[in-house]
């Protein structure tokens, strides 16, 4: 049974359409991440799920029940806010117990619940402090504790880590993942950080302009993006887009990339990845999407990729690997190679391109062709 079902949801403020035909369904225990650039409607969608914003049309079901017109309190959800939204006048204990108190749960049960989440989140020693006496990470834990105390059907997280510093963010990310694995809760999580999305999610919904562009597992989103936006949004460094002309015919397509001042590079397209859409595009300009890790250093002739060579523009070592900027086509591409690459700017570097993982887009409609 699906824990959350959103069916043809529309939302407009006056004449502005902020959510257009959103359809999402997740199973119980799944971790769904709504990701997208700011203004894409992900927070509005979250507020609609929470019941904090009325929707224009559509249906929201939680645990099989239609909750579209229920108040937030009647929906059996809990939310962790970006600003944590702790009640400043109450102690940590009061904050965690407030939701239970409003639901008229007896005092003894309330205290047991507080103790349970405090142990879970290791905040037992903070229970009698006020939120103003806590650090950012501690406030974050309390905010999560407040949500966990109620044991609702769905947890909503609205960019919960964006106010933490980089190190703490990674720690809390792991913590949230652990918590999800341990408790098996259903979570809807909003973020604009695609790394958070990739690391945490069971399923990701990539949004833009109020529409869900693609809903899928992190692997699907990363390796099989449906359009240029999804491909470009997920992944860091971002996917390289290179203009290329499609040549040949079924079974032996190839992509010709012309770089000013260099010989044309012809990359054969793997025959097993042919699609019907390609037939009508022969001779036309295409957008070839190559992730930085699709490039590798050519060592002998061992690799399975297609060989190419280019003059190195910029070398950026990150420690774990080295990012190299190369001219290719009209612009530049970034290649990610091993940390033992000692290439210098201006040198010519032999590379291999793994075309089996490359993706092809229609440059006008920006949709995936192959």
């Amino acid at each position, binding site marked *: 049974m699906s824990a959350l079902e959103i069916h043809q949801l529309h939302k407009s403020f006056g004449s502005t359409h902020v959510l257009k035909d959103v359809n999402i369904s997740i199973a119980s225990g799944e971790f769904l991440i709504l990701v997208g650039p700011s203004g894409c409607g992900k927070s509005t969608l979250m507020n609609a799920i929470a019941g904090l914003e009325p929707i224009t049309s559509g249906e929201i079901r939680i645990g099989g029940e239609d909750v579209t017109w229920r108040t937030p*309190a009647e929906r059996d959800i809990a939310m962790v806010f970006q600003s944590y*939204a702790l*009640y400043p*006048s109450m102690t940590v204990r009061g904050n965690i117990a407030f939701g239970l108190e409003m639901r008229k749960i007896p005092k003894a049960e309330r205290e047991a619940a507080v103790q349970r989440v405090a142990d879970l989140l290791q905040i037992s020693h903070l229970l009698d402090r006020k939120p103003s006496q806590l650090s950012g990470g501690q406030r974050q834990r309390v905010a999560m504790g407040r949500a966990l105390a109620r044991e609702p059907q769905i947890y909503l997280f609205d960019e919960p880590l964006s106010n933490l510093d980089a190190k703490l963010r990674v720690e809390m990310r792991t913590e949230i993942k652990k918590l999800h694995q341990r408790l098996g809760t259903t979570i809807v999580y909003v973020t604009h950080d695609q790394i958070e999305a990739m690391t945490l999610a069971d399923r990701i919904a990539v949004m833009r302009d109020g529409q869900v562009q693609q809903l899928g597992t992190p692997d699907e989103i990363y390796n099989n993006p449906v359009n240029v936006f999804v491909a470009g949004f997920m992944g860091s460094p971002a996917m390289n887009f290179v203009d290329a002309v499609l040549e040949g015919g079924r079974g032996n397509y190839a992509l010709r990339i012309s770089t000013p001042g260099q010989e044309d590079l012809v990359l054969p397209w793997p025959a097993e990845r042919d699609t019907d859409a390609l037939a009508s595009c022969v001779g036309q300009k295409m957008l070839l999407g190559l992730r930085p890790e699709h490039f590798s250093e050519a060592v002998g002739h061992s690799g399975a990729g297609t060989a190419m060579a280019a003059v190195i523009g910029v070398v950026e070592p990150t420690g774990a690997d080295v990012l190299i900027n190369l001219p290719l086509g009209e612009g530049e591409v970034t290649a990610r190679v091993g940390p033992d690459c000692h290439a210098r700017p201006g040198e010519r570097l032999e590379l291999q391109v793994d075309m089996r993982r490359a993706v092809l887009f229609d440059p006008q409609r920006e949709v995936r062709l192959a």
Partner: protein
Amino acid sequence: MPINTTQVPAHAGARGHSASASLQSWLPRLVLAPSVAISLFFVYGFMIWTFVLSLTNSRMLPSYHFVGFGQYARLMANERWWVAASNLAIFGGLFIAICLVIGAGLAILLDQRIRQEGTLRTLYLYPMALSFIVTGVVWKWLLNPGLGIQAMVRSWGFDNFTFDWLVQPEMAVYTLVIAAVWQASGFVMALFLAGLRGIDDEIIKAAQLDGASLPRIYRRVILPCLRPVVFSAVMILSHIAIKSFDLVVALTGGGPGYSSDLPATFMYAHAFTRAQIGLGSASAMLMLGGVLAILVPYLYSELRSKRDV
């Protein structure tokens, strides 16, 4: 006169340099000295002089025949002083409490994202722009049984309607409360509104999700956040209450009889019209004590909470 020390000619040497440096450090003090002296003299000097006078037997003119705390003893035995003091307790207590309730209520209602909020806010704030004299005169007419509210309602046909607090000795002090509340509650509303606007929207959303109804959200979550606002409002209102003089003079003149006297009018009446400067000074010192009794704990707690942070 050149003040800029960096432009000192070389031959002026070290002496010229140090002279202009010391001028630079003394100039601000020199410029500020007159105003400091004036305020020291007129505020603290007169305060001390009043204290000194309160220890003498001054009547029409100041005299320096000291009688110890005799004037204070006379004051404590003076029935009119006790009327004034108990009036202050009634007036101050009701004025502060009603202003807070009305101010907070108006602010909560205005905070519901209503239309024309700016207009309403200005409307509620307007009374604050008037002087207490104007307020007093207006309310004197309104409360006058012969031509104000009572006369109006009677002219509608309710012949038995009575609203004559202004001329009832035991009720006159409440007319002061009405007028003062009318004037000051808009200001309290502005304070509360600013406080309400400072509260994070997400806290309210969190409380909604936690299942709290709107009145409960206000009572349990929002109003406790406004404690500092309540505190400043009480501070401001209580010193308005203690200093109230013009309102009494304009509205009731302290009457009927001296039934609506406040300490300030008591002090004025004795020091300047009844040739009892010593007694007046003693009452002024007690008022000062009252203000300090409110101010000192306030400053103490403010400073302490700053240290805690």
